[in-house]
């Protein structure tokens, strides 16, 4: 199928992955996508493009019909991310069912469904392929995505050309968790004293993921298949976060061995501050904001240390996750799609430029 001649509908286009799909469709193919928008407040990034914003949501079938219009390809990126797990499950599952029914009626030629490697559960084996059994768990997100994959299977049996994608750790410009979250974490001392962290990270740059999604449209062999999309090879979690420390100009060797001043102070004061944070907020938060703003401009080094002090290191309940040695295989995607992602280092180049431009870190040049 020819992507450049396609008419595209994106759900979740105000989000990180959907937003980049819309950008690359316009930049690379001059395709002005139709984008389902539930919350206009989140549409700033999307508004830079000549896309059609279609108001609606996954539980409103009429809005999906209007939004889809004459599109023949759907990138389905929406997932429920509210505080209400019941609503989230409805958005994920009932929403996909709604979209699938309409897509069948309208003769949609490809529905690319964004799932997740969380479908393998909290303790995946060391080598994971698309054939690895899925694992229902207490993780609502992963479990709901398993149910959406079952819906995809059903839609496929009814003739809808569906492709399921399981991305790994997606980083790059605008990534809320693995770029913005990562840089904030290292800046606030959240990745300190990590010599005992020995697990593997499977990062994939957003542009590689999006390229993989486009390959799923262009390649008919993708229909009915599920693909893991990750980077070319795993790296250690320490290498992943240390790359962000490099961007931030933080001394990775001293932090890794815990020899900097933060550790000594943090070990004594940090737990006290953290345990009394509500008390502190009630009485001095208004003043703290003022003081912190003053520190940022007049004593930036002190501000950074204070921030790090309150941030803490890797928490005990995270260590299990960061010590897993799971490798997510992309061999199937390589074979079927010709998928060939960039190295982590290459992906970090434009990520670094983006972080500096938007002042997540100071420009040290």
């Amino acid at each position, binding site marked *: 199928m020819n992507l450049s001649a396609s008419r595209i509908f994106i759900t979740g286009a105000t989000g990180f992955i959907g937003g980049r799909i819309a950008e690359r469709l*316009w930049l690379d193919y001059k395709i002005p996508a139709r984008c389902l928008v539930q919350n206009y*407040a989140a549409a700033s*990034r999307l508004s830079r493009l000549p896309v059609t914003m279609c108001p609606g949501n996954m539980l409103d079938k009429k809005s999906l019909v209007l939004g889809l219009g004459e599109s023949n390809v759907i990138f389905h990126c929406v997932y429920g991310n509210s505080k209400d797990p019941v609503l989230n499950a409805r958005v994920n599952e009932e929403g996909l069912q709604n979209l699938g029914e309409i897509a069948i009626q309208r003769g949609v030629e490809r529905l690319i469904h964004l799932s997740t490697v969380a479908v393998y559960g909290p303790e995946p084996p060391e080598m994971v392929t698309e054939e690895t059994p899925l694992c229902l768990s207490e993780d609502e997100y992963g479990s709901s995505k398993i149910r959406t994959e079952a819906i995809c299977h059903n839609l496929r049996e009814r003739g809808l050309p569906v492709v399921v994608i399981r991305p790994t750790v997606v980083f790059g410009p605008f990534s809320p968790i693995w770029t913005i979250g990562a840089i904030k974490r290292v800046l606030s001392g959240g990745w300190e004293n990590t010599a005992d962290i020995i697990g593997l990270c499977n990062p994939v740059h957003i542009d590689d993921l999006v*390229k993989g999604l486009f390959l799923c449209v262009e390649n008919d062999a993708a229909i009915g298949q599920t693909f893991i999309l990750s980077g070319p090879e795993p790296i250690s979690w320490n290498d992943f976060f240390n790359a962000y420390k490099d961007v931030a100009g933080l001394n990775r060797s001293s932090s890794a061995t815990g020899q900097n001043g933060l550790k000594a102070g943090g070990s004594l004061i940090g737990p006290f501050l953290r345990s009394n944070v509500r008390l502190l907020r009630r009485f001095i938060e208004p003043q703290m904001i003022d003081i912190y703003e003053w520190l940022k*401009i007049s004593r930036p080094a002190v501000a950074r240390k204070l921030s790090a002090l309150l941030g803490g290191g890797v928490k005990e309940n995270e260590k299990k996750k960061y010590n897993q040695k799971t490798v997510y295989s992309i061999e199937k995607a390589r074979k079927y799609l010709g998928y060939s*992602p960039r190295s982590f280092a290459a992906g970090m180049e434009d990520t670094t430029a*983006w972080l500096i431009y*938007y002042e997540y870190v100071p420009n040290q040049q």
Partner: protein
Amino acid sequence: MNIGLIGAGAIAQQAYFPLLKGFPELKLTAIVEPDERITNELSNRFSLSYMGPDLEAALKHVDAVIICVPNFLHYPIAKLCLENGKHVLCEKPITTSVRDGETILRMAEADSLTLSVAHVRRFYPAVKKIKEIIATGTLGALTGFDFREGTVFSWPTVTGFIFDKEKAGGGVLMDIGVHLLDLLFWWIDDEVSSFNYADDNLGGLESTAEINMTFRRGVTGHVKLTRLAVLNNFYTLNFENGVLSWNPFVPRRIYIRKNYEQMTSHKTEKGAPVRDLLLDFSAAILDKRPPFIKGEEALQALRFIKACYASRQAIPMKWLKGEASP
């Protein structure tokens, strides 16, 4: 004085309704709003002479109006209100085109009606103090500036007009930039002699914008705006004998570093900018004096924004076109 609110969307609900509930100088007597869901909800809170979609019907019950509609409607609604002899307080930007702005300005002047624009930040006591510091030369002559303002956009827009090119008239420069430029021009009180402008518009609206500019008296500086990230939000002014910074999100404080001394923080009065805007508007009408925020000043910012758009260049963003492997 009886006042009408035209448009009951996000800005009216957040800024004006809470104040107008008990505002002795301005009695809210009419609300014009086409959305029945909003008017039904408001009918429980306000007892008014008119509430509904008909602007001309509402104007019979008011002496002045506050216009809180999407940007592209500022001009036709302000024009109709002025034609009916009503004083106008308009949300920013004054209009989406300079010609429309000039038209309503002339109309107001011709009929001795008050026309003011809600460049509300000027009412912060700290902002007025900074104007005083510049004017009196407390830190020596002003030599340069660096203004940065960026947040992840989260305004609860009811209609989404702000992302519609035709209805909004522009992106972040028209939205937040008009506030920033209003302060910059008011503080510096000079004309721009040269500038260059770049943004990240890819065929829609800009969400990030940068301006390098020089004023006639030689002050040069840089402006950076975005809706996509939290920037180091300071308006920094460089003087012969020091540096002054102000954060629009911590508006009470002014940070001053004289020569090579330590930075000091100066806390000003908290202020109540929207209340003071309304008080000034009503006093300007009653006293038949110009308002603190004059229409011509609002037009200066709009003219500059339009000049920026006309000379637009793309911000070089190498991550935007970063190629994935083939």
